């Protein structure tokens, strides 16, 4: 089971985990990314290359499925306007054993950060806004899987 979704709507990690738990594996791992309200952030705007995003996420999912013996994986990325505390991204993996589930989960979020066409713009309480800069650590985190 590979489920990849790009959506403006909220999602429920509990529901996503339950679907992964149904697959008969012994381990389900997840990562949920949440909008932090640092520095009076009032809104995070997620832009993406809509025609390309789904395929890019499918490519990342297929890479994980090829590397680890997964029973299932779920990738959800939200787009549009989000406020602090809202969930942005969800990665869930199911496998017979925990190692594959945990490693694939870490791989998937590292790669989602660097290999899918999303851009974040932050808007602050004082009216200013700025595009989030890519972090060198994210490129390094993704590179360790090569």
């Amino acid at each position, binding site marked *: 089971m590979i489920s990849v979704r790009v959506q403006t709507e909220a999602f429920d990690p509990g529901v996503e985990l339950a679907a992964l738990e149904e697959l008969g594996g012994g381990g389900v791992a997840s990562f949920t*990314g949440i909008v932090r309200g640092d520095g009076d952030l009032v809104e995070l705007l997620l832009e993406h290359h809509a025609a390309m995003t789904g395929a890019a996420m499918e490519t990342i999912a297929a890479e994980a499925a090829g590397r680890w013996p997964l029973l299932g994986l779920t990738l959800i990325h939200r787009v549009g306007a989000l406020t602090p505390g809202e969930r942005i991204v969800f990665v869930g993996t199911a496998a017979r054993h925990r190692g594959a589930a945990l490693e694939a989960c870490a791989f998937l979020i590292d790669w989602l950060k660097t290999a899918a066409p999303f851009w974040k713009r932050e808007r602050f309480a004082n009216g200013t806004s700025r595009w989030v800069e*890519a972090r060198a650590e994210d490129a390094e985190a993704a590179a360790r899987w090569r």
Partner: protein
Amino acid sequence: MAIDILYFAWVRERIGLDGESVTPPDDVVDVAALIDWLATSSDAHATALADRARIRAAVDQRFATPDTSIVGAREVALFPPVTGG
């Protein structure tokens, strides 16, 4: 041949366009040459594309490098390094 150029994030904002259809000269065969050529289109293009190290591209919706060929491509997207996740 006409190519659809798409711009995202601050590249889009600085150029002031979501995209445009262009027909580059025949000697513009890769991403790097295309960016050089687009940068001559207007002051806004020149400014938006000035910092080549911070411009990334996708050719026909696949991530590309400066030397990726654009010959026969229908779409080239230009954007800053991605920041999803």
